[in-house]
């Protein structure tokens, strides 16, 4: 999206590329981070515009909302749980869930995590402190744990007949707390922060959160993806791996010989790799046209 795509002929020769381009300016290195914080705080601001200033563009919270008095939006994960618990939902909730689901499918499922979810601000803060304090990674749960937890949320909804996960879900709890009054919700925020700081590196968003796992599944076929478009220019500096909240998603695209697209649903499209790469390896791409072009390159006929 930001760096121009180059044809294969113009590319620097692969592994021999060692000269590092000049280091980018601070602003260029933070541009996606700043855009994400703007989106996160901006959305929160839109929800707060009503209660604080009486301007009711948005009513409700991330679970369900009404925009400009007409557009219904609702969280598809919560609607699915409600459907399992109760056996039926309203058309309004269904339409809202489809709108939100379609949006996140289009822009990358876990765009919710990195561009919208307020818990991301807390866990990024914990990670920032962790890096400064040079703490060891701590507990590394297995890759699939969040999917087991996701399954547990669905099963417990079906078994108890209630949306059990919403009793403790930090994602909606934090956002609802900020918009409707926090109560003891700050203890949950603190718990997530301390867990990520002291127990497990990128523990909550990267290993446990079932909401993120759900949006990861939504995003498995998303058209908007990061591509290691100029991977021949990579100097193996490791900056992208260090900054990425889900580093395992980079490896096949950057180091592999197959597609340059980051295809894993775990990728949050946060754009941090685009931010920090001094060699302009990464860019955002439309997955299906990009993949078609890659196929054409392999077999020109």
């Amino acid at each position, binding site marked *: 999206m930001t760096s121009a795509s180059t044809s294969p002929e113009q590319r620097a020769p692969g592994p021999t590329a060692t000269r590092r381009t000049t280091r980018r300016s601070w602003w260029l290195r933070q541009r996606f981070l700043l855009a994400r914080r703007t989106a996160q705080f901006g959305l929160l601001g839109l929800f707060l515009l*009503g209660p604080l200033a009486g301007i*009711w563009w948005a*009513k*409700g*919270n991330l*679970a*369900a*909302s*009404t925009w400009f008095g007409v557009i*219904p939006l*609702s*969280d598809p994960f*919560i*609607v699915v749980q*409600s459907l399992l*618990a*109760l056996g*039926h*939902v*309203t058309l*309004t*909730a269904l339409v*809202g869930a489809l709108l939100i689901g379609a949006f996140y499918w289009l822009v990358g499922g876990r765009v919710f995590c990195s561009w919208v979810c307020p818990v991301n601000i807390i866990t990024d803060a914990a990670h920032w402190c962790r890096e400064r304090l040079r703490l060891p990674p701590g507990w590394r*749960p*297995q890759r*699939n*744990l969040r999917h*087991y*937890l996701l*399954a*547990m949320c669905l*099963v*417990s*909804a079906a078994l*108890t*007949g*209630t*949306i*059990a*996960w*919403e*009793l*403790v879900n930090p994602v*909606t*709890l934090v956002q*609802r*707390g900020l*918009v*409707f*009054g*926090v*109560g*003891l*919700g700050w*203890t*949950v925020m603190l718990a997530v922060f301390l867990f990520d700081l002291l127990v497990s590196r990128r523990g909550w968003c990267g290993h446990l959160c079932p909401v993120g796992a759900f949006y990861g599944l939504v995003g498995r076929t998303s058209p908007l993806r990061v591509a290691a478009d100029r991977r021949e220019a990579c100097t193996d500096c490791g900056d992208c791996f260090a900054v990425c909240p889900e580093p395992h998603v980079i490896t096949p695209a950057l180091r592999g010989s197959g597609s340059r697209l980051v295809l894993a649903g775990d990728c949050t499209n946060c754009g941090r790799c685009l931010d920090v790469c001094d060699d302009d390896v990464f860019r955002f791409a439309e997955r299906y046209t990009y993949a078609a072009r890659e196929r054409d390159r392999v077999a020109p006929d």
Partner: protein
Amino acid sequence: MSARRRTEFSADRRRFLTQGAQAAGSVSLVGFLLGAYGEQAASTPVAALRPPGALAEDEFLGACVRCGLCVRDCPYDTLRLARFGEPLATGTPYFVARDIPCEMCEDIPCVKACPTPALDKSLTDIRAADMGVAVVTGTDTCYSITGVAHCVGCYEACPIKDDAITMEMKQEHGKVFFVPTVHREHCTGCGKCEADCLYPEAAIKVLPRALVRHDIGQHLA
């Protein structure tokens, strides 16, 4: 060679079993805690009343997504969302009659705002609402019943007085008393009576209907 392969195989298997057990263990633990917390949170305190049209509590907790749209459209700030740490399911709407009772809006904006089945859309007449039922709990404190004063606070507060509440005259030892009497088939549980009761601790309280209902014969069975 084959011995090594066997070791590798058993190491793999051991890792698989250990990780599987760990995952199953931690997920079950979280699930169990969640279930226990849910059980506790579902035992809604008596003073907390659900909005008009709310499904029965167990169904309500399966339908309500805790979005607060009913709270936003309540013109009297009656409804609020339970905060984390309050003794009912986090994020669900409720009101406390003694603080701010339901004003029984004719267009029932809270029900209209609800995007889920949690607040029943078939409720179009607010007089058919069933948030609870008022019960005279302070038979020894009520100014009218004790004869301290001829107080009609609860009666005057009732938006459907003469249907849901009447002051019944009673004569005892040559004295005349007026006893506030709730007619539960009409009472919507709005809580106006409880809010306006002049006694420091309300002598008339709205209770969840499940607590007051008498299904004749049920306890005999």
